[in-house]
């Protein structure tokens, strides 16, 4: 009879990692709580801002595709992959914009390791009708701006806005970044 098989035990979660995860979750929640009333004040429509959790991922996977193509866009993000990619960056920027039970938009990005940037890397809105149609970008910019304030970043940066959304970005104060880069960035100063 051979030796009994040793059952592999999962590594114990690192205490500092747990604290960091909770810390940034708390900061994001404060940001959501700060911006949600401003949305009502500006647009008169109640909004719920949450993390990109299982519910949001399920809607993006199972409900959003039904409306895909309604406006002739060819691409969609796989938000499960984005969430997976960012799962270990506890300081990530993420927000789901809801109207009641309807998921209207998702947005994610990262702060720089230094003090300079918060970069929005991914933003997508539901292609079907919803109460924030035409308002998604400024709302997401405001949530990101507030998170940048909380994390003391100086510049809000957009990575590769699609050409059709550039006029919206420019209306919201973003300008093409001058520095040479293989990627296209638009940026504006974070305001407090």
């Amino acid at each position, binding site marked *: 009879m051979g030796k009994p098989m040793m059952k592999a035990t999962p590594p114990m979660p690192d205490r500092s990692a747990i604290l960091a995860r909770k810390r940034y979750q708390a900061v994001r929640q404060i940001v959501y709580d700060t911006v949600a009333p401003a949305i009502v004040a500006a647009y008169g429509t109640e909004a719920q801002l949450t993390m990109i959790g299982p519910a949001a991922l399920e809607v993006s996977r199972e409900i959003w595709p039904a409306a895909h193509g309604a406006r002739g866009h060819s*691409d969609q993000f796989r938000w499960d992959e984005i969430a997976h990619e960012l799962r270990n960056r506890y300081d990530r920027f993420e927000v789901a914009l809801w109207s009641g039970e309807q998921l209207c938009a998702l947005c994610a990005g990262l702060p720089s390791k230094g003090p300079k940037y918060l970069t929005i890397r991914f933003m997508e809105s539901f292609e079907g009708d919803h109460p924030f149609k035409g308002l998604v970008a400024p709302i997401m910019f405001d949530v990101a701006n507030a998170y940048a304030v909380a994390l003391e970043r100086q510049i809000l940066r957009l990575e590769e806005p*699609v050409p059709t959304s550039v006029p919206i970005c420019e209306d919201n104060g973003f300008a093409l970044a001058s520095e040479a880069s293989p990627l296209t960035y638009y940026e504006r100063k974070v305001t407090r």
Partner: protein
Amino acid sequence: MSRIERSMIFRQPAPARAEASNTDPYVEQAAARLNGYKSTLKPLTAEQRERDAAIEGGILIGRPENIGTPIEDD
């Protein structure tokens, strides 16, 4: 998916803000920075909103092929 099932999954767990913030000075400092935060949201004209509504829908920022690529940092 039934409506009940949908309403179940739509319910997000509300993170306990106080649970983490009361014991973490970093969170308290972040909250202090946001105290009196001036929102960047501005009312849109009907024309602006109509134009933006026609543009919005689908991807606004980013490329699917950039998922998993490293970010250019400062």
